[in-house]
């Protein structure tokens, strides 16, 4: 239903998306998972033909986004990051406009809008000005706008942002119920959201796909990995390439420590490969004064964090301060 291959988007010098490829099958709910600034929204905007890609091809519902944008637009319902609502309009008249502009015939508008309001639970605010609604309700109006014309493909950019926990559950249930009949791709930076709604997940970081698998697949693959935490008294930077070369090592990264005169290195290794003795030998041999060596299993949450921080300093602050 959606085919993305080698998608690249550059804003002047900055590359937002570099070589992203994935596909979504009919009726599937795909989670597009990544931290803020990973290129999620940019990809969503290209899929919905709002902006043009710098390179690569995207087909949605069999139509090429670059050469047949209007056919693509007719096949999708799109909920952008900020719900595209006219604050001066009433909910119902806004949804009627949105449905009509998406090609719903005049005779069917009432029925379509009614159904969309029902699904999103906004029938009771139909006569209210959108500008007077809370963020959660606006989000739901935005979602109703995306499904009002009953499109085969739904592109939802962070659909549960700004909702309270009860609304989040409602919207997730709604999205789940849309699968099967609709093909859904939803972006999020919240892992539990993917766990709750999606059948498959594409993990993206810094404009690149770092994993594409079913939820169970990613959990299984990552949970089987083990992480070694090594503490030394001298800077082990020079030893890292050597550790990387060891059998079974997936990645290494330098950590931070609060204690002065201590250095921390994280080594991620594959299941079943116990390299503790080899590493300790190497460290002792290099005269780095080994202070500690600790092995732990990764949870799915860790797996996600690891996926997007591969070969980088494990500095969580960086992720927190980055905004789209």
């Amino acid at each position: 239903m959606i085919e993305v291959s080698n998608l690249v988007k550059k804003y002047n010098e900055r590359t937002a998306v570099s070589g992203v490829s994935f596909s979504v099958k009919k009726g599937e709910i795909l989670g597009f998972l990544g931290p803020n600034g990973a290129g999620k929204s940019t990809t969503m905007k290209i899929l919905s033909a709002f902006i043009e890609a710098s390179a690569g091809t995207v087909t949605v519902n069999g139509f090429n986004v670059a050469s047949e944008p209007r056919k693509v637009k007719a096949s999708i319902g799109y909920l952008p990051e900020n719900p595209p609502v006219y604050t001066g309009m009433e909910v119902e008249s806004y949804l009627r406009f949105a449905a009509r502009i998406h090609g719903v015939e005049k005779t069917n508008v009432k029925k379509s809008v009614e159904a969309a309001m029902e699904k999103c639970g906004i029938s009771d605010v139909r006569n209210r000005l959108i500008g007077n609604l809370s963020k959660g309700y606006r989000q739901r109006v935005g979602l109703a706008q995306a499904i009002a014309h009953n499109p085969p493909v739904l592109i939802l950019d962070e659909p549960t942002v700004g909702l309270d926990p009860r609304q989040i559950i409602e919207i997730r249930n709604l999205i789940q119920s849309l699968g099967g009949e609709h093909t859904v791709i939803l972006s999020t930076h919240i892992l539990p959201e993917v766990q709750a709604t999606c059948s498959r997940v594409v993990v993206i970081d810094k404009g690149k796909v770092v994993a594409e698998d079913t939820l169970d697949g990613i959990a299984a693959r990552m949970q089987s990995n083990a992480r070694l935490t090594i503490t030394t008294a001298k800077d082990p930077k020079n030893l890292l390439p050597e550790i990387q070369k060891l059998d079974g090592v997936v990645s290494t990264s330098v950590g931070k420590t609060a204690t002065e005169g201590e250095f921390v290195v994280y080594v991620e290794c594959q299941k079943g490969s116990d390299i503790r003795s080899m590493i300790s030998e190497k460290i002792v041999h290099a005269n780095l004064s080994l202070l500690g060596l600790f092995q732990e299993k990764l949870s799915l949450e860790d797996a996600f964090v690891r996926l997007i921080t591969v070969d980088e300093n494990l500095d969580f602050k960086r992720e927190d301060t980055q905004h789209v």
Partner: protein
Amino acid sequence: MFKNISLIAGRDLRSYFYTPIAYIVIAMFLILIGWMFSQLLSFYAQQVSQYAALSFGEKPKLVDSVIRPLFGNVNVILLFVAPFITMRLLAEEKKDHTIELLKTAPVRPIEIVLGKFLAGFILLLIMIAITFVYPAILYFISRPDWGVVLACYIGIACVSAVYISVGLFWSSRTENQIVAAVLTFGTLLFFWLIGWASHRAGPVWSDVLNHLSIIGHYSNFAQGLLDTTDFVFYFSFVGFALFLTNLSVRGE
């Protein structure tokens, strides 16, 4: 094609009345025009009574003393009013992200541009139509020259189309409504006064500059003349501005 244009035009036209802007702009416009009309009329009455007392010179004409100056003033006031009408058309859509709704719907950019243009143009036409009460009042006093009145209205409609198209272009270039309004006013004033430069320009350039003047082409209408040249000028001016707006909407 027409369905989408009329959908967008209808929504935008209605949205003028969701906010106080349209009411305030229309009210200010009518107050000013009404005041000017009463001033012109009382001056005309003075001229007529002087003529009757002295029986000297030419009898003052309603067309010269009231109609032409009144419609000339309408043009000037619209020059100030139009930027406030056009500034929100696309700038607000971008600021509120609602442009994403239009641009991800199966709608051509030109349909968005034409819909927006029509919304602003129709609002100005409504305002202009209300001013018809003044020629109608004159009908009870004297016999105004309906040909000139009609030509003036056609001319004002053409000038208004230029105002809206320039305003729409600037509104497409920024998401700040004030910036859009200021740039619109500046551009319109420039093309209004561009004829001034013709006095010092060479013979060819003088013609070119005069030809580019928005108000220069209006003078024929004020004389009651409908000239193809003037229509071609206004149509091509509007067409070019909308073409640029379309590029701007597509390019984002």
